[in-house]
């Protein structure tokens, strides 16, 4: 918790999968944003799938990070899907007035993979022959 954890970025086919499993402090949020963009450039991935199913809160800072990642990834010719939002998080996002511009949200990872494939032609399947590629992890300094 509090950003002490590691946030892995996995490359599955042409998709970067980012499972967020810790409550992130602001610095961790900014570092993650930077790392996703670096990995997009380095790996040539075309999709970003961010799993927030374990996030118990999305405030305006994290909400903005998600929108920013989507916008920056779009400029780099990649699409962003956020999956697994908890109902309580969806309610507070609306009450806060956040719209998550440019971010597609779906219920789970399966739906996210399907959306990237069907809507944008970005496949994760080829990786299941080649296996998962672990492209790095974030270790928060301190």
């Amino acid at each position: 918790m509090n950003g002490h954890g590691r946030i892995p970025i996995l490359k599955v086919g042409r998709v970067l999968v980012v499972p967020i499993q810790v409550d992130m402090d602001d610095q961790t949020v900014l570092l993650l944003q930077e790392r996703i963009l670096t990995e997009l450039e380095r790996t040539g991935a075309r999709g970003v799938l961010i799993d927030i199913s374990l996030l118990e809160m999305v405030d305006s800072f994290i909400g903005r990070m998600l929108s920013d990642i989507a916008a920056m990834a779009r400029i780099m010719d990649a699409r962003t899907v956020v999956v697994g939002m908890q109902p309580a998080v969806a309610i507070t996002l609306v009450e806060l007035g956040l719209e998550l511009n440019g971010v597609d949200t779906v219920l789970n990872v399966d739906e996210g993979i399907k959306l990237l494939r069907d809507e944008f032609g970005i496949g994760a399947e080829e990786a299941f022959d080649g296996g998962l590629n672990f492209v790095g992890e974030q270790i928060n300094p301190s």
Partner: protein
Amino acid sequence: MENRSIPLETERDIAVARNEVRNIASQLGFRIIDQTRLTTVASELARNIVKYAGRGRLITQSASSATGKRGLRLIFEDEGPGIADVDLAMRDGYSTGGGLGKGLPGSKRMVDEFKIESIAGQGTRVTVVRWIH
């Protein structure tokens, strides 16, 4: 529940504050959705202090109403520069710090009572209450 004071001085304290608030809200018997509302409000208002005032504190108190309702009161206070125009700061989308301008008005929508006091040059105090429904 005893009153508790949580220092707000660094970005990490924002995460500490919201964890504290979630634990307290859970202990008091708030539903998950209200725990999430209170945690989000704590995150927004704690960040305002660290960002605009540099330092301050969050005080948590259990609250009870004249009609017997129980709840949680959160007081965010600092001795920072104060807010020049509170009405403007409460407007959706207004920010002096490059943010989204959702923190204050959004927080107000997530609680039952919301009071903001600010004196230029002396500081700001935001008091919120959420009742257990």
